[in-house]
């Protein structure tokens, strides 16, 4: 069989199911402990958050809707006065160190000048206000975090670069605290000091980013943040595959080491040990095929990891493909497929779910990674599925979490044919 040597990129209609990017507040408010997220939008936004976040909504979360009413839309009410009233209420009840304003489709369309209002109100009520436009007109799901972190990058303190030491390393991307610690330790083992994470656990502890600092991303959906760090903060971006799967984690660490001119120690052994520990799960996935419908931008990295595990990847749907920010990851995907001697997947940007389902019927993959809108109907047609959302919320980064990813993938495959 003739094997394509280059990745094949396509773009469809963009008619696909994904979460609205405002969903990022659900994990970011938990990550940034002294924050409050105010989503300025309509009942539609509120309904989505309420239903998508399930139980979290009942635990007095530090987020709320500023629900726009007809008077706001027709400008009978004054945006500034209204926002001031709500933010004072939040200040009184919760006293946060920072209020994030999440702009939505509606604030875009009525052109509410959030970036203009925020600095004035900030000085008036004496709380930092960070504006992020995480709307469904421009972004999908996890890209919401990207807009928030890009805005947050501007708020990091800016010291003079010290001339003695080598430039500091800042990692960007919101991960659970334990995963941050694991990755920080991996780098420390190689003699690399992580000088800070964006975001930090508290707004008041944002890392210093001097000019010339090195920055590296942990997630594939952070291209705006990367751009902001490079252009506005004059940081240097380390372009590496993402630390997802043992292969990705090794490549990520290697790349950072190479920047600091450090010869990585015991890295290959460390990776091999992880692979060895995965052997029982690997047996299940080897030779099986997988189809990504695409909704959270983690697709390339997970596809690459699954290809390393010996799976055949038919198609990688993805909402948005930044070939520059993901270049190292794409290269690793290509190398992995060639090394494993499996077909290179087609990468479909802005997929069309209807067309994809027809392709799924034709290809009959062993596993479809998809959103919840399609999972049950596909299962009813005897096609194994895994909810893609779980990859966003599970801990999947670093060496020790590789098993987590595989467990998600093997769960539907392990299920024996049920008999009654």
């Amino acid at each position, binding site marked *: 069989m003739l094997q394509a040597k280059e990745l094949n990129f396509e773009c469809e209609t*963009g*008619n*696909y*199911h*994904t*979460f*609205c*990017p405002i969903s990022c507040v659900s994990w970011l408010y938990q990550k940034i402990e002294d924050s409050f997220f105010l989503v*300025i939008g*309509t*009942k*539609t936004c*509120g*309904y*989505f958050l*309420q*239903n*998508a976040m*399930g139980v979290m*909504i*009942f635990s007095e*979360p530090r987020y*709320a*809707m*500023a*629900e*726009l*009413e*007809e008077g*706001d*839309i027709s400008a009978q*009410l004054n945006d500034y006065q*209204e*926002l001031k*009233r*709500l933010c004072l*209420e*939040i200040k009184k009840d919760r006293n946060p160190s920072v209020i994030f304003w999440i702009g939505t*489709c*509606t604030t*875009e*369309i*009525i052109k509410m000048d959030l970036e203009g209002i925020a600095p004035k109100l900030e000085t008036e009520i004496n709380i930092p206000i960070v504006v992020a436009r995480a*709307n*469904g*007109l*421009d*972004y*999908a*799901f996890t890209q919401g975090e990207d807009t928030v972190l890009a805005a947050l990058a501007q708020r990091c303190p800016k010291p003079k670069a010290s001339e003695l030491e080598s430039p500091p390393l800042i990692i960007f991307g919101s991960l659970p605290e334990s995963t941050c610690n694991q990755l920080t330790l991996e780098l420390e083992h190689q003699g690399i000091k992580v000088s800070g994470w964006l975001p930090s656990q508290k707004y008041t502890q944002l890392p210093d980013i001097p000019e010339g600092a090195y920055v590296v991303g942990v997630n594939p959906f952070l291209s705006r943040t990367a751009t902001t760090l490079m252009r506005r903060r004059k940081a240097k971006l380390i372009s590496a595959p993402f630390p997802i799967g043992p292969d990705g984690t090794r490549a990520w660490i290697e790349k950072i080491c190479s920047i600091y001119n450090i010869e990585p120690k015991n890295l290959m052994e460390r990776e091999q040990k992880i692979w060895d520990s995965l052997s029982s799960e690997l047996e299940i996935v080897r030779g099986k095929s997988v189809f990504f419908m695409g909704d959270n931008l983690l697709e390339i990295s997970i596809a690459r990891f699954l290809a390393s595990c010996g799976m055949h990847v038919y198609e990688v749907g993805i909402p948005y493909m930044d070939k520059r920010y993901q270049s190292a990851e794409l290269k690793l995907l290509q190398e992995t497929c060639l090394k494993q001697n499996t077909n290179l997947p087609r990468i479909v940007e802005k997929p069309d779910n*209807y067309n994809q*389902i027809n392709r799924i019927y034709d290809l009959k993959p062993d596993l479809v990674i998809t*959103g*919840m*809108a*399609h*999972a*049950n*109907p596909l299962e*009813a047609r005897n096609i194994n599925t895994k909810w893609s959302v779980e990859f966003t919320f599970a801990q999947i980064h670093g060496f020790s979490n590789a098993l987590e990813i595989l467990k998600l993938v093997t769960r539907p495959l392990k299920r024996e044919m049920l008999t009654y």
Partner: protein
Amino acid sequence: MKLAYWMYTGPAHIGTLRIASSFKNVHAIMHAPLGDDYFNVMQSMLEREQNFTPVTASIVDRHVLAQGSKDKVINNITRKDKEENPDLVIVTPTCTSSILQEDLANFVTRASYSSNADVLLADVNHYRVNELQAADRTLEQVIKFYLEKVYTEPNSHIKKTKKPSVNIIGGCTLGFHNQHDLIELKKIFKELNININLIIPEGTSVNELQKLPEAWFNFVPYRETGLRTARYLNNQFNMPYLDITPMGLQQTAQCLRQIQEILKTNQLDIDFEPYIKHQTHSISQAAWFARSVDCQNLIGKKAIVFGDATHAAAFAKILHYEMGIEVAWAGTYCSHDAEWFKKEISHFCKDIVITDDYNLIASLIAQSEPDAIFGTQMERHIGKRLNIPCGVISSPVHIQNFPLSYKPFLGYEGSNQIADLIYNSFTLGMEDHLLEIFGGHDNFPQAEPELLKSSSIIWNKNASEELNKIPRFIRNKIKRKTEEFAKANNFSEITLETMYAAKESNSS
């Protein structure tokens, strides 16, 4: 702007989608940005639907903002027409499209030229109506559209069915126990020898809608969806309708008697009384259960009720009339139906609350300290926080409110379910006594809930040990009342004597 943490009803387009996706072979196209198709997730997860939800989005993105939708909506309609061959496509505006002010009606007209399907634009305004009102309107709109196609003359002659027959109007997807209720209603009508002409929208094809006027009367089980349609049919086709929800024994009987009256005006002499009597006393267990000694413990217990208008009103009546439970207050978030709600329950319930602010409901519950709450998922969580049991009786709901087993709320089997739900929500009778006598299952000191920590008054050792012996579910109340008593009498420390004195003063 309004600061909102939680909403009892969804946005308008959800109502329209619930109606559209309930009909057979109707497809909805939302004019919406990416991510607004969350309805599909709910349908697929909550209802565990095996089919793909017949809803797609015509995506509003930057290009649409800059240049308008142009042919995008039309292309999406005609594409869906070819792919799925639906009978009807409903174009659904959202909050976003309603401020874009694109001429969706024009798109719909143009698309209808090139598609086999009928195409309608849902006539709902995001900023004026909520999910339930929108569902009500959309249903009326669809019915009107199909009937006006056929019955062009004002007094078209309609052939009624030979045997008495009914249309059941309003049960739809994502409704609270709607599927089970429908089965129960079908059963009742069958036993009463009344044919079911059509059930709309659930599972019905729009091609059958012209049969609607052939029924003898219309039945609207839930006030929130279907009333507009019933009124329209009444105005245009002189069809009587019935909007008494057969929830609870008393209301089921009322409902059946009303049906009897309607049938009598059609010269059908029937008597449902033997049926009602037989069902109430022999088939349903609820009447006997309420009479049985075990339920004596429920008499005088205090409950609060909150939910949509249909369920909250019906439940308040059941608690009051059928179980002898005091309804401290009852309320609904259906403010558009407040008048009806007040009229229904004001003669036995003093305080009526009309609000969609869950914070207000939470503080009212905390103030009135009921023995049990009957409300939505939100009230269940409020109850959890305050350590008060809660039975869920109304949307908004979670996946556990879509049970696999047969759990109707309507009719005679519904009465059984409701009786179980009410009884299980209170602490069981004998257990209640034993807890009081022996000081509870758990009379070891334990971490105090938040509420208990707040006060400034000191409890001495004996008194706090005594307090810990009090069953957990009333401990808060006793603690608060004792402290109030101590404050009123200027005691800085609470001793055993203070506690007993407080108890005496409270009971006198």
